[in-house]
C-alpha cells in the first residue's frame, strides 16, 4: 500500500510542529463554542435564527461529515475545544510543557474502562433526544456546557484525554470513520522506537506532551484512537513520525475490532436510518413523537430507536453471519484439507501456529514468511462472534456514506441561514455584517439528490469490496454475499427514505 509522507514538505512540517497555529485554531474554536453556549442560553428560541443551532448543527456538522471526517479523519479532534480547558488545567500550561515535563499523573489514574461502550451509550442518549437538541437553542447550549464540564472533571480525575478517548459521543464515530480517511500518523521505522528507551512520544519531554490519547505511536496500526494532536511529532527526537497520505479505507485491512466497535457501526447506521425517517420523512406523527419527550409517543419512539440500533440491526447481521458461515465453500474445503493433513501425519495449521508461538516465547526470531503466502486465519476456527466483528468492518463505509447522504439533505437547504445568523447571532435585532435581512435560500437542491445517490451507492460498493476482502482473508469468498446483501437492503432503505 503506497504512502506519501506529507512531512517531507518543509513548510507543512514547520506548520504542524509549531504550536501557535494549532493554539490559535483551538482558541477560535473555544470562542465559537462559548459563543454558541451563550447564544443558546440567552438568544432567541427560534432555532434557525440562533447561532447555537445554525453554527453547530448546520455549519459545523456539514464541515465535519462532508469534509473533515471523510478526508482528514480526526482532524477536528486536533482543535476540538471541549477537552481544552480540562487539558490546560491538567497540564498546568496552555502552550508547551515545562523542560522536565513528563506525563503529569499527579495522582490521576488511568481511566478504568478500555472500550468504547460508554461512547456508544452516550451517542444513543443524544440520539434519543436529538429532535429537541437540534431544534432548541437552550438545549444545545446545555448539552455543550455539560460536555465541557464533564471533560474538565474527567481531566482532573484521570490522566490524558480520557474524556475524548472513552466518553465523548462525537469522538466515538469520528474514530470509527477515521479508519477510512486518506491520512494517518505513523512511525517511520519501528526499529528506532524499539531502541529508544525514553519513549518520549508516550511519556513526554520538553518539546511535547506524551500522547494525550494514550496511544504508543510505534504500535499504532489504525486511526481510531489517534487524535492528530501532533504531540508525538513534537516530542520525537528522531523525527520518526510521518503524516502519510494513503488510500481511502486502508485501516479496514489491518484492523481487528472488538464488539464495542462493531456495535458502534450498527448504532451509527441505525441512527442514520431513524434520523432519515424522523427528520426528513413525511410522517408528522414520527416527528411529534420524537419531539414530545416524556410522552407516551416518545417512549414508543425511544423504544423503536433502541431496538433498531441495539437489537434488530445487530441481530439481523448476526443471522446473516450465521447464514454465511453455514455456506460450504473454500472455507469448508480448507477445514477438510487440514483434517486430511492431520490424518496423514502432517501438522495441522493450528498446530503450526501453536509451535510458532512457543518458539517466539522462547525468544526465537520469527520464521521468515514464504513470499506470496499470506498468513490466513483458519476460517474453520473463527467463532460466529469473531466473524461478526470482522464483517462489521463492511458496515463502516456504508455508515459514513449514509451520514454523508443524510447531511446533504439539510445542509444545502439550510446553509443560507448562516448569513443572517452571523449578523444577528442572538436574534436581538443586530446587523453586524449587513446580512441580517438575507432570506432563506436553499442551494443546489436539484443536485443534492444525485449526490446522495452517489454517496449511498458508492458506499454500498465500498462495503461490498470490504466484505469480499474479509471473506478472502479468511478463505471463504462466498461468505461475503449475504453480508453484501445485508448492506444492499440497508442502502435501498436509505435511498427510499432520503431520495425516494
Amino acid at each position, binding site marked *: 500500500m503506497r504512502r506519501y509522507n506529507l512531512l517531507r514538505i518543509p513548510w507543512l512540517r514547520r506548520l504542524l510542529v509549531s*504550536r501557535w497555529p494549532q*493554539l*490559535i485554531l*483551538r*482558541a*477560535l474554536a*473555544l*470562542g*465559537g463554542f*462559548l*459563543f454558541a453556549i*451563550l*447564544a443558546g442560553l*440567552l438568544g*432567541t*428560541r*427560534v*432555532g*434557525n*435564527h*440562533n447561532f447555537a443551532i445554525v453554527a453547530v448543527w448546520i455549519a459545523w456538522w456539514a464541515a465535519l461529515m462532508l469534509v473533515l471526517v471523510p478526508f482528514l479523519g480526526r482532524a477536528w479532534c486536533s482543535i476540538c*475545544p471541549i477537552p481544552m480547558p480540562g487539558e*490546560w488545567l491538567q497540564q498546568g*500550561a*496552555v*502552550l*508547551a510543557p*515545562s*523542560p522536565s515535563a513528563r506525563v503529569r499523573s499527579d495522582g490521576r489514574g488511568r481511566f478504568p474502562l478500555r472500550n468504547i461502550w460508554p461512547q456508544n451509550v452516550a451517542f444513543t442518549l443524544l440520539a434519543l433526544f436529538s429532535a429537541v437538541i437540534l431544534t432548541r437553542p437552550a438545549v444545545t447550549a446545555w448539552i455543550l456546557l455539560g460536555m465541557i464540564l464533564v471533560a474538565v472533571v474527567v481531566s482532573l480525575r484521570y490522566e490524558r484525554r480520557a474524556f475524548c478517548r472513552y466518553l465523548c459521543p462525537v469522538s466515538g464515530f469520528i474514530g470509527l470513520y477515521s479508519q477510512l480517511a486518506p491520512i494517518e500518523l505513523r512511525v517511520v521505522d519501528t526499529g528506532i522506537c524499539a531502541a529508544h528507551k525514553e519513549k518520549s512520544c508516550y511519556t513526554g519531554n520538553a518539546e511535547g506532551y506524551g500522547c494525550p490519547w494514550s496511544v504508543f505511536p510505534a504500535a499504532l496500526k489504525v486511526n481510531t484512537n489517534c487524535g492528530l494532536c501532533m504531540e508525538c511529532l513534537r516530542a520525537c527526537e528522531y523525527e520518526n513520525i510521518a503524516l502519510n497520505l494513503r488510500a481511502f479505507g486502508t485501516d479496514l485491512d489491518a484492523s481487528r475490532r472488538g464488539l464495542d466497535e462493531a456495535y458502534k457501526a450498527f448504532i451509527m447506521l441505525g441512527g442514520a436510518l431513524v434520523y432519515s425517517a424522523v427528520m426528513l420523512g413525511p410522517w408528522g406523527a414520527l416527528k411529534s413523537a420524537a419531539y414530545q419527550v416524556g410522552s407516551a409517543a416518545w417512549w414508543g419512539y425511544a423504544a423503536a430507536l433502541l431496538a433498531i440500533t441495539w437489537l434488530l440491526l445487530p441481530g439481523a447481521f448476526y443471522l446473516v453471519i450465521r447464514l454465511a458461515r453455514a455456506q460450504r465453500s473454500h472455507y469448508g474445503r480448507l477445514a477438510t484439507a487440514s483434517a486430511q493433513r492431520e490424518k496423514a501425519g502432517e501438522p495441522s495449521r493450528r498446530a503450526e501456529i501453536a509451535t510458532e508461538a512457543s518458539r517466539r516465547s522462547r525468544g526465537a526470531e520469527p520464521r521468515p514468511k514464504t513470499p506470496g503466502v499470506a498468513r490466513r486465519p483458519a476460517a474453520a476456527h473463527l467463532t460466529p462472534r469473531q466473524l461478526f466483528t470482522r464483517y462489521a468492518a463492511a458496515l463502516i463505509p456504508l455508515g459514513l456514506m449514509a451520514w454523508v447522504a443524510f447531511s446533504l439533505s439539510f445542509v444545502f437547504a439550510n446553509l443560507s441561514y448562516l448569513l443572517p445568523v452571523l449578523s*444577528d*447571532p*442572538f*436574534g*436581538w*435585532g*443586530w446587523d453586524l455584517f449587513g446580512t441580517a435581512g438575507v432570506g432563506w435560500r436553499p442551494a443546489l437542491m436539484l443536485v443534492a439528490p444525485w449526490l446522495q445517490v452517489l454517496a449511498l451507492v458508492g458506499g454500498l460498493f465500498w462495503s461490498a469490496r470490504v466484505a469480499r476482502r474479509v471473506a478472502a482473508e479468511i478463505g471463504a469468498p462466498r461468505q461475503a454475499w449475504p453480508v453484501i446483501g445485508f448492506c444492499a437492503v440497508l442502502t435501498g432503505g436509505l435511498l427510499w427514505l432520503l431520495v425516494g
Partner: protein
Amino acid sequence: MASRRMKRETLARLIVVVLAAGFVLAAILARGMDRTIEVHAVMPEKGGWLPDSLEARAGEPLTLRLISDDVVHGFAIGQSDFEAVDLLPGRPVEVTLTFDRPGVYTYYCTRWCGPNHWRMRGTITVEGETASEEPPSAPPLYVTLDLDLDAPHDVPQVPSRRPSAVRGALLWVEHDLEARALPSPDRATSPYALWRDRRARPETSALRDDDLWDVVAYLWQGMTTPEALREGRELYARNCAACHGVGGAGDGVFGQASGEGDPESPGFGHESTSATDFTDPAHMLGASPALLQGKIVRGGMGTGMPSWGLILTEEESWAVSDYLWMFQFEYEAE
C-alpha cells in the same frame, strides 16, 4: 530560557483569553448597553406576551423590540391608528409608539396563533396629565338602555325565506310605504320587534309575512352605510371568523370549546359552549343592534367570547354589528 518559555506561555494565555472569551464578553457588554424594551410573543398557552404590561409617558416615544419565539404573531394597539405589524418567528421588529393621552392601552395579537389567540393581550399604562377639555367617554348604548345582554332573545316566528332588502325596496315603493310615515327603526329595536310592530299596523296589512320581512331587511340596510359594511366585513374576517366561521354559522376552526379542563380550548376556564351561529334566524332576529354591539364590547360572560371593547373603537364595533345582519338579510349590492 525559562523566562522566554514563560513569556510564550503568557502570550498563549492572552491569545486564548482574547479569542475565546473576547466574543463572549463583547456580546454580554453589548446586551447590557441595550436599553430597548424587548417584548416576546409566544402562543398564549405558553405565556402570550412577555411581558404583558408596560409603562410609558404621554408624549414620550416608547421603543419596543418585538420578537416572536414560536409562530407568526401580529402586534397592534387597540383603539388607535397604529398599523398592525406581523412578527415572523425569530425576526425582531422594532416599533416606536407615542401616546398623546394618558390611559391604559391594550396591545394584542392580530394573527391567529392558537386556540387561545384572543387571550393574547397586554396593557400599556401611559402616565401623564389629562387635558382638561377632554369630555368623558360615553358608556356603550346597551348600558344606557340597561339591556340585559345575557337574557334569551329567541323569537317564535321566523321568515320562511331569507329576507331581501332588494325585494323590500321594491315593495316599499309599490305599496308607497314612504308616504305612510311609519316610525323608523333604531338600534334599540330588534328585527322581530320591528316586524311585529309593522304586522300590527293596517298600512302593511296587504303584505304577506315574508314580504314584510323583506321590508324589514330594507329598513335594516338603511341603518348602515356601505363603508361601514365594508369595514365590518374586514374586521369580522380578521377577528371573528376563526370562531364564528366565514359564513357566520359558528363553525370556525376555533369555535368549538371543549370545556373548562382543556387549556388548549378557546373556552378554557369557562363553561363548555360553541360560537354563536349568526345564520340562525330564531336567535338573531330577536336581538337588537345595541345588544349585538354590547356583546362585542363586553364579551360573553361565561363563554369563550372575548371582550373587544378595548380593542375596537365604538365606530368599529358598530360596523361589525351592522355586518352581522348580512348573515340574515340579503342587502342590495354596493
